[in-house]
């Protein structure tokens, strides 16, 4: 009986060992580590779904995804995809966050989109070389509501369902934006498979723009708030008010 149990245990352990071996990093290949937090549903409050991020190979000269409308000359061979969607085979899962290690072809890459929205209006790019492991940090996709809009509570949804011929759907669909931060003390540590190699924090270059190849909505990565900051900075400055004259109270030495 003990032999039988040992044999079963060995059989169960085999696939796990093979899977762990698959996840060993190739020292010549390039990898990124990224933690993606969940996306809160745009329709009902409190319902989350795993976030996903799409990385695209970027042509910084033509300012487009390789093979895109503005960069047809950099189209990749048929078997190479110009983008990788990060949403499967997380190496670590914790409450509300999943950690991924993704192999990339050494090149200039851009954060092309998240959870169905393409960041065509403004994103960040980074370069990765052979044998490098870059840490992209922690990202959180969020619905880019306009002021006053928010997801409905379950009670609101139930009330709305009672209205005959009323639509349950919001009138306007909203894109997603992506909050990004460097990995900190409260975040997941780098995964064990990175091992001795460690991971260098990625150096991002702002201002990447490109076409909409994800088929859905578009936005800036930083969303409406980033746009407002940029538009405010571009507006001509108001004429400065004359400096207030310093008044000295009588009797002051």
């Amino acid at each position, binding site marked *: 009986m003990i032999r039988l149990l040992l044999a079963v245990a060995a059989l169960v352990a085999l696939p796990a060992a093979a899977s762990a071996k698959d996840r060993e990093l190739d020292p010549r290949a390039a990898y990124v580590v990224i933690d993606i937090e969940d996306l809160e549903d745009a329709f009902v409050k409190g319902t989350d779904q795993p976030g996903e991020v799409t990385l695209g190979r970027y042509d910084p000269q033509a300012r487009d995804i390789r093979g895109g409308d503005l960069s047809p000359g950099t189209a990749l061979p048929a078997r190479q995809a110009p983008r990788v969607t990060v949403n499967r085979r997380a190496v670590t899962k914790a409450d509300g966050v999943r950690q991924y290690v993704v192999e990339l072809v050494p090149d200039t890459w851009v954060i092309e989109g998240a959870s169905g929205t393409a960041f065509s*209006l403004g994103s960040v790019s980074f370069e990765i070389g052979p044998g490098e492991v870059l840490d992209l940090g922690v990202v959180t996709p969020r619905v880019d509501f306009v002021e006053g809009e928010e997801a409905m509570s379950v009670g609101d949804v139930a009330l709305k369902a009672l209205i005959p011929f009323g639509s349950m759907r919001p009138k*306007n669909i909203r*894109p997603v934006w992506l909050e990004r931060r460097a990995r900190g003390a409260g975040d997941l540590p780098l995964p064990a498979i990175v091992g001795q190699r460690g991971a260098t924090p990625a150096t991002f270059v702002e201002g990447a723009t490109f076409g*909409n190849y994800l088929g859905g*909505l578009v936005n800036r990565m930083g969303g*409406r708030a980033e*746009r407002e900051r940029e538009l405010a900075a571009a507006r001509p400055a108001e004429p400065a008010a004359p400096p207030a004259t310093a008044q000295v109270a009588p009797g002051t030495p």
Partner: protein
Amino acid sequence: MRRLLCIAGIACALAATPAAARDFYYFHKADVTLEAFQRDRLECERLMGGASRPPQGPAYVPNNNLSVAQNAAVAGIAGMFEGMMRSRERRRTVDAIERTCMADKGYHRYRVSDELAEELWDIDDPEERLARYLAMAAADEPVGERMVE
């Protein structure tokens, strides 16, 4: 250019709720030039062109209790409604892309009355229509009620 002249008319969006009327609106940015307006529109159009249709799938699974002709008729009706829904979904996506893109370029959206929209549509000469639209888009003071993005 001809395409630009066509799209430069008052934009029309079908609201999501069946009870809601059609919204006619235009984009306004004070002092925008014709060249800047054309450039912004073309950039946004390029992004709008990226909106894809949802993946196609069978709209109707044949029922064994119906004849071939009955199944074909039901499948045809189901396909028609499905096509309408898909087309409407894509329209929603394209409209949302347009609003986000134009807002990103500093434009605000203003609602116009049905009468004004009709008046603009009735202008046969595309150049005249564009001039009228541009005058509204670049006016110091926008006409109409400002809409959410």
